[in-house]
């Protein structure tokens, strides 16, 4: 006869409520792990969607996801010419926050070469960008629909396609536009700034007495063209030719004194370790604290439940019950409570994870690890009750 099951069945209302309460707590613990995995998945989403072998960025920087990296667009030609490179494409990245429908709307703008790498990975609705200007493909996270428009910089951009859940390392949904559009949005100065620049250049050139008026005119035009140029990108991504050595190609590009060539592994390291390390530690601390709290709660529940059963335990001892029957009853109840709570937490999180503002990724490894931890906590927590039970004097069954 399984006393643990009988007791639980008899007090099922109390047991279920307790397990649900504990399940909520374990659900939070699970969600912390899921948020952490989601952070990694988000951080690596663009990296993986780009499917490049090398990320060429400004020297002494960690690339566009970690810090500012600006390189000339025409470097794509030089990179493409490096032995071992099969394809090179420029990319532009920018986080933008605007007001949309009366609410702050934050997204990660990716400008890509229509014939190159780094575009939206799969179109789930609509079509890819076909025109060179004023079209965009948005990720699902923007909650925008086909045909919606966004006013960015000086122009309106229309949604022509919707891609999957691509987000930046900060969790902002991705918006894809052509490189030219992205450069305009990021680098194009407004008319006032252009007028100010022109006036400043004119004043400076006017002060140069050594040059003739035609030379001054030419100089002004060239300087203005340079200051107004938008042909800057944040990175050039490249794919290696079959059989090419990654390290040798990296070294070749690295020899140029104003560039750094990062491998995907290095970018992954920067994104997953560097950028979300603090978040990982923070979430890890929360998980540990919540697990300790869960352990304390289970211990208290099992202990008070044991106190409630002192006379039952004394009677069992008096009628000759083996200690393993009593230990088994307490241990099984603790494990069952933990198991049910774990199940409640898992079901709850599975049902709600898509409603979280950030991605929650539940991996089998995390879930199995947590289950093992819960089993350990329940076993340890039950020791308090077991210790109490084993100390019960059978004589306590006597008397009124």
């Amino acid at each position: 006869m399984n006393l643990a099951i009988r007791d639980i069945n008899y007090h099922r209302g109390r047991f279920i409520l307790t397990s649900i309460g504990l399940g909520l707590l374990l659900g939070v613990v699970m969600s912390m792990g899921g948020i952490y995995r989601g952070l990694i998945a988000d951080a690596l989403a663009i990296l993986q969607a780009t499917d490049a072998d090398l990320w060429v960025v400004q020297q002494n920087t960690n690339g566009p996801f970690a810090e500012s990296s600006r390189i000339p667009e025409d470097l794509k030609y030089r990179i493409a010419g490096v032995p071992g490179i099969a394809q090179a494409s420029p990319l532009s990245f920018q986080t933008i926050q605007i007001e949309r429908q009366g609410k702050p709307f934050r997204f990660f703008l990716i400008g890509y070469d229509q014939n190159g790498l780094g575009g939206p990975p799969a179109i789930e609705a609509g079509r890819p960008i076909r025109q060179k200007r004023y079209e965009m493909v948005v990720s699902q996270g923007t909650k925008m629909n086909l045909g919606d428009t966004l006013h960015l910089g000086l122009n309106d951009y229309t949604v022509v396609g919707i891609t999957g859940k691509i987000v930046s390392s900060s969790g902002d949904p991705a918006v894809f536009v052509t490189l030219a559009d992205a450069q305009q949005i990021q680098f194009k100065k407004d008319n006032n700034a252009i007028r100010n620049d022109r006036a400043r250049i004119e004043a400076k050139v006017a002060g140069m007495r050594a040059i003739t008026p035609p030379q001054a005119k030419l100089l002004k035009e060239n300087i203005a063209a340079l200051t107004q140029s938008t042909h800057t990108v944040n990175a050039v991504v490249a794919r290696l030719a079959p059989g090419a050595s990654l390290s040798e190609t990296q070294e070749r590009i690295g020899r140029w004194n104003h560039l750094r060539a990062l491998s995907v592994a290095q970018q992954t390291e920067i994104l997953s370790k560097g950028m979300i390390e603090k978040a990982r530690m923070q979430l890890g601390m929360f998980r540990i604290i919540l697990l300790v709290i869960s352990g304390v709660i289970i211990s208290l529940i099992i202990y008070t439940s044991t106190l409630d059963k002192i006379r039952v335990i004394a009677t069992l001892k008096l009628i000759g019950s083996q200690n393993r029957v009593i230990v088994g009853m307490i241990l099984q109840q603790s494990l069952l409570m933990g198991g049910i709570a774990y199940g409640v937490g898992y079901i709850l999180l599975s049902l709600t994870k898509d409603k979280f503002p950030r991605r929650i990724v539940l991996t089998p490894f995390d879930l199995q690890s947590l289950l093992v931890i819960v089993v350990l906590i329940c076993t340890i927590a039950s020791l308090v009750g077991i210790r109490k039970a084993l100390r019960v004097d059978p004589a306590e069954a006597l008397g009124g």
Partner: protein
Amino acid sequence: MYAVEVAGLTKIYGQGDTAVTALCEASFQIEPGELVAILGPSGSGKTTLLTAIGLINEPTHGTLVIDGIAIAEEGWLPGLDLKTIRREKLGFIFQAHNLIPFLSALDNVILALEINHQPRAEAKRRATELLTSLNLGHRLHNYPKALSGGEAQRVAIARALANRPKVILADEPTAALDTENGKNVMALLKKIAEENRSAVMVVTHDHRMVEGFDRIFQVHDGRIVREERAPA
């Protein structure tokens, strides 16, 4: 062979100046099938005697033999599995029935049998038979809280009888019952003693409940001060 033999059984709590003699030099034998009452006021030592015979409370001095097995001689004898002896030789009836609240009447009795390694089917058959014989056939699947005080005490008696014990120890079995139910329980214990050939020792402080007992031990200040036998 006696069901219970005690000689010079003594229990002293504490040591030196703080020593308290709760039971002093108790000596008697109880035959199988005999119904014995241990009567005395609170604190007289009757429960100490019961717990010593029930193998819960180690006697300080004296000898204890149950169903021919030497149990204590100046303390527990070494090498004995008291739990097994308690399970196989003794049955307990408590003041407050002490049924397991989350088990039905039937399961309470089955549990006692399963603890004694009886197969489930055999345990169920025996438990049903016992409860039916105690007029509880209609209450087999009721939980203790649904039973009246008298019914609960009869289930407790069935549990005590389950393993066919040689000695039944009852601690104030009528204390929580009204007079009529109390008398019924006592009559039942007498019947059990006669039919099962079990020695039944009942601790009580209620003189009115010991009518029809074979022997009555009066306990006072830890000593058996009087022994009365029922007229033949």
